[in-house]
Structures are given as structure tokens and as C-alpha cells.
């Protein structure tokens, strides 16, 4: 209530002040500031956001997570040396948004001294929240903070012969999460505070050596995961028919991954006719870890677990080499033939050696008896091997300045090797399962300009996807894509596109049923941009995303193997418009509206227990408006309002409405 009154007062005050100023003086154009040989341009939008919401707070925070309070909506600072002879730098550019309370915060800094160096840094911070009734029985929760940073320094950035690079990337995850643990065939929600970080250092160069553009990068990546897992007090688990309980659990499994990597690439263009590019990346990731898990409680047979200790180390290693080669031959001004070849090879080998030491007792009417301790060693190895060759050859022919076409053929061959061994006798080798597949696809397309204002892009691809083990993205596919753009004037653009994807798994008859997958996707989209002047602009668009997937599956109902169908429906409509009107030289009004509505499966219901129909019908709409009044050459006052209204069709316990008014000052220096 206090917020509402405060906001209303601010609005009234702003409008009054703005109206007075509008009457009092005409606007003056803002100008750059000159300071010590630098031209400075700076603007900052600072303000306060209010929040009123009702409905499911957890879902709101999982989707949006905007809070109330002061924040930096946007900041932009640019210092540029006037004559290119600045001291330490010739360019200093800072952009920032969201700081001071938004869940998504961003900062970018670019600094450059002509000829000598260029430095850029990105820093992002996300407050990640997840608490959904529709996922993992609402027992996988997160309230964490993620930080990402990229820092790159280039020395001699404009030198055409040699450039030197140094880089660093960081990734930090901290916060509280809840996860689950399957123990004694029951599932227990357990606390899991995340503490993970990744650091990545890089050094490299670009060089011109003879006719080749050479790039080399050497890097080292370290991942540390110190996430722990705990049950501090009595936890009875999810399964009411299972008598097991956990009274104490502590799991520590610190893991470290070290990954040196090398990237080398070379490129050349010979006589403007042959363009060659080659790239090779090699990395070796090695993870080491040490598990210590202590559990106390009661097992599924009503024995007291005095101590169930799992302890043991392990490691996994993954060398990975990727080689790419591309060649384009510009046979004539009209004809280009390209070939792209890849080989990707990795092999993951890992194992652990864990000893379970179980100390139990049994309490009966006659007293408590200590049971014989159990010591269960396990030695496990797993192997995943993968090798892929793929080649794509393509011809591109320009029939006329207004029409060109292309045709391409892709061939892929994969070899996948999977093997596992549990407690193998000494000297026994793993006998892996090896599978091959090779796939083909053809691409045909054209680009046409029927009129100078009208462009059409078209692609059709037919072939088989290179999936061996999975079928969610299916084998045989026909993809069709057409995109068109009409630009009758510099101020008006119309775009439209249609993308269709028809996927089928090869038919396979199992138990009299055609055991396949049929998935059809359609996306139609159209948008229009109209900007007749700086005083008015309108952008609007509509997208229809439709997916129908029908997969034969076999699953178990009460222990009975059941052959059935899985049907998934997406019928998603999205409409938006954004507009800006400069209603007075000092007063601007922006407004927009977005609505997303997924009708899902509509009225369809499962005809039998063997049919699984799923969809997620919902409606999510968001109007917004923003009033901007130029109070002074250097000051804009803004007042805005955003509303988010979320409704689900099947479950209504996750619906929410959020009103987010805000007011801010934009200062130009």
C-alpha cells in the first residue's frame, strides 16, 4: 500500500513538473562533453521498481524473479580520445544493466589503446530460482546465484601480421538447493548447498605466415565442485509403504576436473579462387573425486542402520580431438563449390572403487541385537567411445543477379562404443557394444529477388539424422524453410517465414504394432516494422508454433508390459506489438503488449491407459507502457508499468499476476 501511494505521488509529481517544463522551454539537443582530450558520452537510468503480485509466488520467481527496490536500469559511458592519442586508452566504454536488485545483471567494459591493446570484459550475474509443482514432485528446488565473467586482452589488435591474446573466463555457482536421493528404494528430499566454480585461462595468437592466417590457442580449464548433500534430521521419505527413514546423511564428493586444450586453425585464400580453412581442437579432461557418504536411520527391513558408510575414489578421463577442414572453390563469378569435412573422436574411460561398510542392529521385543557388519566392495568401469566422420559438399550457382540456387549433400558416419564392467575379475577386459550408422541428407535451396523490394529465401532438406541411441530427434526428416522480406521503403519492412519439420523413425513392427515415431512441426511467423519518423514507430508480429508428436512406446503398468502411444501437442500462438509515439518534443510514450497462448492438446483426452497424452496449455501475457518526459537537456523522467499474467489450464495452483510499476530518471552527462 505504501508503495502504491509513493508511486502515485511520484507519477503526479513527475507529470506536473514535466508539464511545467514543457510549457516553460523548448528542448535543446544534448551534446558530448569534452574533457582532457576525450569526448565523453554518458547516460544512466536510475530508478525504483515496485512489485505487487498475487498467485503462486514460487512460479513467479521461477519465471521472472523481479524484485522491488532501487536499481540501475541502464548505464552507458563512452570516452573516446579526440585525436587518437589518448594516454592509457583511446576508448573506454562501459555498459551495464539490471544492477541493484534485478535477477539478471550485466556489465561490459571495453578499453582500447589504438595499436597497442584491446581489452573487453563481460560480467553477468543471475539469481536463479526454481520451485515448480510440475517438476520432480516439487522436490528439486533452487535458490542460487550464478556469476559468469569473460575477460579478454588482445595485444596489437590492429596488426595484420601478429596479434596476441590472453583470456580468462570464470563461472561461480553458490546457493541452496534441494534434491532427492534414492536410498533403500525410497526417495528422500535432501539439502544440497551448491559450491561449484570453473576457471578457464587462455593464451594465443593470430599470425600471418606466408599466405596463411594462423590462429593458435592454448588453454586450461579447471572445474571444482564442492557441493555437499545432507539430511540433518529425521526424514521419512516419499514412499509411505517403505519403512526406511534417514536420521542423518552427509555426503561429500569433492571433484576436480582439469582440462588442457589446444586449438589451431589455418586459413588461406589462393588467387581469390580457393578458400581453405582447417581447424584442430584437442582437449583432455580428467575428473578425480573422492566419495564419503555417511547414512544413519532405518532400512526397508526395519533394521537400525547404525552406520552405512560409502567411501572410495575414482576418476574419469576424456581425450577429445576434433578436426575440421573446409574448402571453397570459386569456379566462376557464378559458381561456388564448397566442401566441409569433420572428424570428431573422443573416448571416455572412468571407474570408481567404492567400499560400503554397513553396521546394523535389530530391535525386537527381546532387545537389540547387533547384526554382522557387511562390507561390500564395488569396482566399476565404464567406457564411451565415439568417432564421427562427416562431409558436406555443396554447389552454389548464381543464375542472375536476382536468383541463385544451391544444392548440397551431407554424409555422416558414426561409430559408438559403449561398455561397462562391474567388479570384473582381474585381467578381464570390457567387451563393449559397438554400433555404426551412416546417414545421408540432401539440401536444395534458392534465394530470389523477384523485385528490388522483395527477397525470398528457400531451403529444403531431406535426409536422416545421425542419432544412434535416441529417437527423440528422429531419423528421417524433411525440413522446409521459406523466409521472405518485403521492404517497400526505408521506413517499412514486412517479414514472414514458414518452417516445417516432418520427422519419422523407420517403421519397425513389434508385436503387431508399427513401432515408430511421427513428429510434425510447423512454425509460421510474420512481423512488420513501420518507422515513418523519429516521432513514431510500430513493430508488430505473430508466430504460430505447432508440434504434434506421436511415438510408440512400451512401458509398464502394474508390472505388465504395455505397448502404447505417447502424444505430445504444442499449439503455441504468440503476438506482440511495440510502439513509440513522441507526442511532444519533450514527451514520449512507449507501449507494448505480448501474449503467448498454448492451446496444447485442446479437448483431446487419453482413450486408454496405454495412451499418454501430454501438453502444457497456458496463457502468458504482458502489457507494458512507459512515459518519458524530458525535464532538462540532461534529465529524462520515466514512469512505466509492466504486468505479467500467467495462467495454466490443467493446474491452477501455479497461476500468478504481477504488476511492476517503476519510475526512473535518465541522466545524460
Amino acid at each position, binding site marked *: 500500500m505504501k508503495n502504491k501511494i509513493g508511486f502515485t505521488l511520484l507519477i503526479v509529481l513527475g507529470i506536473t513538473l514535466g508539464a511545467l517544463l514543457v510549457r516553460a522551454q523548448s528542448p535543446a539537443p544534448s551534446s558530448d562533453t569534452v574533457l582532457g582530450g576525450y569526448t565523453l558520452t554518458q547516460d544512466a537510468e536510475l530508478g525504483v521498481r515496485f512489485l505487487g503480485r498475487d498467485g503462486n509466488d514460487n512460479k513467479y520467481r521461477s519465471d521472472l524473479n523481479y524484485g522491488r527496490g532501487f536499481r540501475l536500469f541502464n548505464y552507458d559511458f563512452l570516452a573516446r580520445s579526440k585525436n587518437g*592519442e589518448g594516454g592509457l586508452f583511446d576508448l573506454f566504454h562501459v*555498459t551495464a*544493466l539490471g544492477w541493484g536488485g534485478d535477477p*539478471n545483471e550485466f556489465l*561490459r567494459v*571495453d578499453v582500447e589503446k*589504438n595499436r597497442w591493446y584491446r581489452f573487453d570484459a563481460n560480467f553477468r550475474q543471475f539469481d536463479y530460482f526454481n520451485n515448480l509443482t510440475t517438476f520432480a*514432485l516439487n522436490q528439486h528446488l533452487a535458490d542460487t546465484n550464478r556469476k559468469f565473467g569473460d575477460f579478454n586482452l588482445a595485444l596489437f589488435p590492429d596488426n595484420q601480421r601478429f596479434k596476441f591474446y590472453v583470456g580468462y573466463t570464470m563461472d561461480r555457482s553458490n546457493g541452496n538447493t534441494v534434491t*532427492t*536421493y*534414492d536410498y533403500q528404494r525410497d526417495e528422500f528430499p535432501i539439502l544440497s548447498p551448491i559450491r561449484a566454480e570453473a576457471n*578457464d585461462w587462455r593464451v594465443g595468437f*593470430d599470425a600471418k605466415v606466408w599466405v596463411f592466417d594462423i590462429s593458435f*590457442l592454448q588453454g586450461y580449464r579447471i*572445474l571444482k565442485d564442492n557441493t555437499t548433500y545432507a539430511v540433518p534430521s529425521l526424514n521419512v521419505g516419499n514412499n509411505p509403504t517403505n519403512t526406511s527413514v534417514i536420521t542423518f546423511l552427509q*555426503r561429500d564428493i569433492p571433484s576436480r576436473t582439469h582440462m588442457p*586444450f589446444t586449438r589451431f*586453425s589455418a586459413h588461406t585464400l589462393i588467387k*581469390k579462387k580457393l*578458400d581453405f580453412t582447417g*581447424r584442430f*581442437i584437442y582437449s583432455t579432461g580428467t575428473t578425480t573425486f573422492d566419495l564419503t*557418504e555417511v547414512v544413519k536411520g532405518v532400512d526397508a527391513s526395519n533394521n537400525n542402520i547404525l552406520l552405512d558408510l560409502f567411501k572410495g575414489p*575414482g576418476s*574419469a578421463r576424456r581425450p577429445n580431438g576434433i578436426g575440421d577442414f*573446409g*574448402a571453397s*572453390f570459386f569456379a566462376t563469378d557464378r559458381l561456388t*563449390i564448397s*566442401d566441409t569435412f569433420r572428424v570428431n573422436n573422443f573416448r571416455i574411460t*572412468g*571407474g570408481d572403487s567404492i567400499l560400503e561398510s554397513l553396521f546394523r542392529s535389530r530391535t525386537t521385543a527381546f532387545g537389540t541385537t547387533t547384526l554382522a557388519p557387511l562390507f561390500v566392495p564395488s569396482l566399476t568401469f*565404464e567406457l*564411451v567411445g565415439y568417432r564421427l*566422420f562427416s562431409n558436406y*559438399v555443396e554447389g552454389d550457382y548464381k543464375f542472375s543477379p536476382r536468383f541463385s540456387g544451391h544444392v548440397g549433400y551431407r554424409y555422416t*558416419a558414426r*561409430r559408438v562404443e559403449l561398455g561397462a564392467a562391474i567388479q570384473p575379475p582381474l585381467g578381464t577386459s570390457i567387451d563393449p557394444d*559397438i554400433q555404426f550408422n551412416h546417414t545421408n541428407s540432401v539440401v536444395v535451396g534458392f534465394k530470389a529477388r523477384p523485385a528490388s523490394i522483395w527477397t525470398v529465401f528457400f531451403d529444403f532438406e531431406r535426409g536422416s539424422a545421425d542419432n544412434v*541411441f*535416441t529417437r*527423440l*530427434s528422429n531419423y528421417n526428416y524433411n525440413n522446409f524453410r521459406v523466409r521472405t522480406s518485403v521492404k517497400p521503403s526505408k521506413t517499412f519492412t514486412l517479414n514472414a517465414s514458414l518452417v516445417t519439420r516432418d520427422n519419422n523413425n523407420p517403421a*519397425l513392427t513389434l508385436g503387431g504394432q508399427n*513401432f515408430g515415431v511421427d513428429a510434425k512441426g510447423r512454425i509460421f*511467423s510474420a512481423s512488420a516494422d513501420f518507422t515513418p519518423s523519429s516521432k513514431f514507430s510500430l513493430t508488430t508480429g505473430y508466430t504460430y508454433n505447432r508440434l504434434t508428436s506421436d511415438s510408440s*512406446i*512400451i*512401458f*509398464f*503398468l*502394474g*508390472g505388465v508390459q504395455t505397448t502404447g502411444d*505417447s502424444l*505430445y501437442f504444442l499449439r503455441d500462438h*504468440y503476438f506482440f506489438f511495440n510502439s513509440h509515439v513522441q507526442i511532444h518534443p519533450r514527451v514520449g510514450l512507449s507501449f507494448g503488449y505480448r501474449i503467448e497462448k*498454448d492451446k496444447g492438446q485442446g479437448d483431446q483426452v487419453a482413450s486408454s491407459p496405454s495412451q499418454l497424452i*501430454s501438453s*502444457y496449455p*497456458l496463457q502468458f501475457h504482458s502489457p507494458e507502457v512507459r512515459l518519458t518526459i524530458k525535464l532538462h537537456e540532461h534529465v529524462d523522467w520515466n514512469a512505466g508499468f509492466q504486468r505479467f499474467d500467467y495462467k495454466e489450464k490443467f493446474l491452477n495452483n501455479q497461476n500468478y499476476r504481477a504488476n511492476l510499476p517503476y519510475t526512473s530518471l535518465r541522466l545524460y552527462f
Partner: protein
Amino acid sequence: MTSSTSPLKAIKRALIGGLVLVGLVGAYSISFSKSAKPDKGKAPQATSANYKAEDYVGAETCKTCHEETYNNFEKTGHFKLTRYGNWTADNKGCEACHGAGKAHVDAGGDKTKIHRFEGQSAKQISETCLRCHAGKEEHNNFRRGEHWRNDVSCINCHAPHSATATAQKMLVQKEPMLCFSCHNEIKAQFAMPFRHKVMEGTMKCSDCHNPHGGFELKQVRLTSSGDAPCLKCHAEKQGPFVFEHAPLREEGCAICHTPHGSNNAKLLKRNELRILCLECHSNAGTVGAPDTPSFHNQATARFQNCTTCHVKIHGSNVDRFYFR
């Protein structure tokens, strides 16, 4: 899917043989093709080979007639090169792209005496830019990229002399709006309840895609270490794990997730997790991933929520069923 070893060697030979053939044909054609000459009657090309050093007049001379363009140019990253005294005139200022200006100036601004881009194809325009901007790993595949193929030239996205002063990379418009101006069907996905924070401004399309082309499908940008771009931020999924969920690295994250946005939690392709799992773990023997055991009774909530047990679904170091 077949189970024999012999095709692989044949394929390898065929692919390598194909490459060698392309190289030979290319080399042959180059050997017997005549060197390119500027077309008669057309505006001269911007290649320095066509000019002598005294044909260059410098950007300041251009300013006398093209002041507005010059003033905009002054705010771009290109302008700084005019300060580089030891750079030759054909590599800096207006004449780096438009060619030497003396004849144009001497003819009182005759448009036929200067290299202009009107009427040039997208590929020709891009070649002018690539004279200087090829040679970076980022641009190595531009001549095979989707944009190149579809006649989207450098200046469709970059403004060489009219960018705003604060524009990153001299882009004509900020990402993602620049990308949406053609890829409009993607915008809707970033308005869904679960999405990567692109519209919020904390991520941009080029964080994951390389608009200048690349070896990957959809011009996805690999991490420096050659991993999927998702792993740059979702480092905890990188592994290697002793027990890796095989699709994680073999098929990629997009086998289960829709990367731009989704109505489904965790950007999953299906709203019910079990459906996602069962469509691969289909119990059809030769089709799909390993079968599910018979006690996985799909009539109970317990077995409808696969990840309550198989928590470490991306990979585990200590449990082959991903329990911990």
C-alpha cells in the same frame, strides 16, 4: 543402424579421396584461369593493385564534400586507422573501401571514378570487408557460412560509417533485434516462461552462434575447448563423468532441451519428464536407449518422475543409474 566394421574404412577413404579430388580440380582450374580484370565501364574496384600511392587523397579530402558521412565515420572504429601514419593509404580511411579518390576528386566528384557499392552483389561487398577482416579465426568460415550463401553481406549487419558512437562491433542495431529482423520466428521462443535471458539483455545471440559461419550446424559457437556452447555456462554438466548419460555428448544438449525457450520447465522438450525419457527408453529392444525395468509402474507418481531417483541424469561419478 548396422553392425559391421568394414564400411567405416571405405567411408574414410571416400571422404579423404573426395577432398583430394576437390583440391586437385580447384588447383587445375586456378592454373588455367585468367587473372581477374576490372570490367570495362564499371566503377573501379577497391583493390590496391589497381592504384598507385599518389592516387590516394586521404579522408580529410573526402570530408570537403561528404562532411556528414565523414562526421559519422569519425565515430566508428574504422576512423582510428586514419591516425596510423605508417599504414599505407589503401588500408585506411575512406579509400580503404572505396579505392583511390584522386580521379574522382579531379573529375569534380564524378561517381564513375570512385568505387561504389550500389549494384554490387552481397558477396562482392563482403569481399571488400574481408580484405582486412579475414585472418581472424572468427571469420575463417565466412565464405562457407549460411549468411554468405544467402547473400547476407557484412553491411547488412555492420555499418561501416554510420554506426552510432556506442554501437558494439559497429552493428546497425543491437542484438537480438538485429537477428530478429530476419529470424523473426525465434523471437516468440524468448517470450516463453522458461528462456535464456536474451530479451533481458544479459545474453545475446552471438554468445552461442557465430554469425560469420562455422563448422557446426546452425553456426553454433563451440567453447574454446571444443565443447558445446551450453557448457561454457553450465560447466557442472561438462564432465567427464565415470557414468555419462550417453546422449549428453553424442547427441548434444538439444536432444532433450530447446535452447531458446520453452513452456516446459528446464527448457525440456516435453512437459512431463517421463515422456521425454520413455520416448528414448522405449523398451523396444533394438530401438532407442536401454529398457526400463518392469517395476517402473507408470501408474504411480513415483515412477512418473524419473529424476527423483535418477537425479544426476547428465552424468554421475559414483552411480551407474545416476542416483547420486
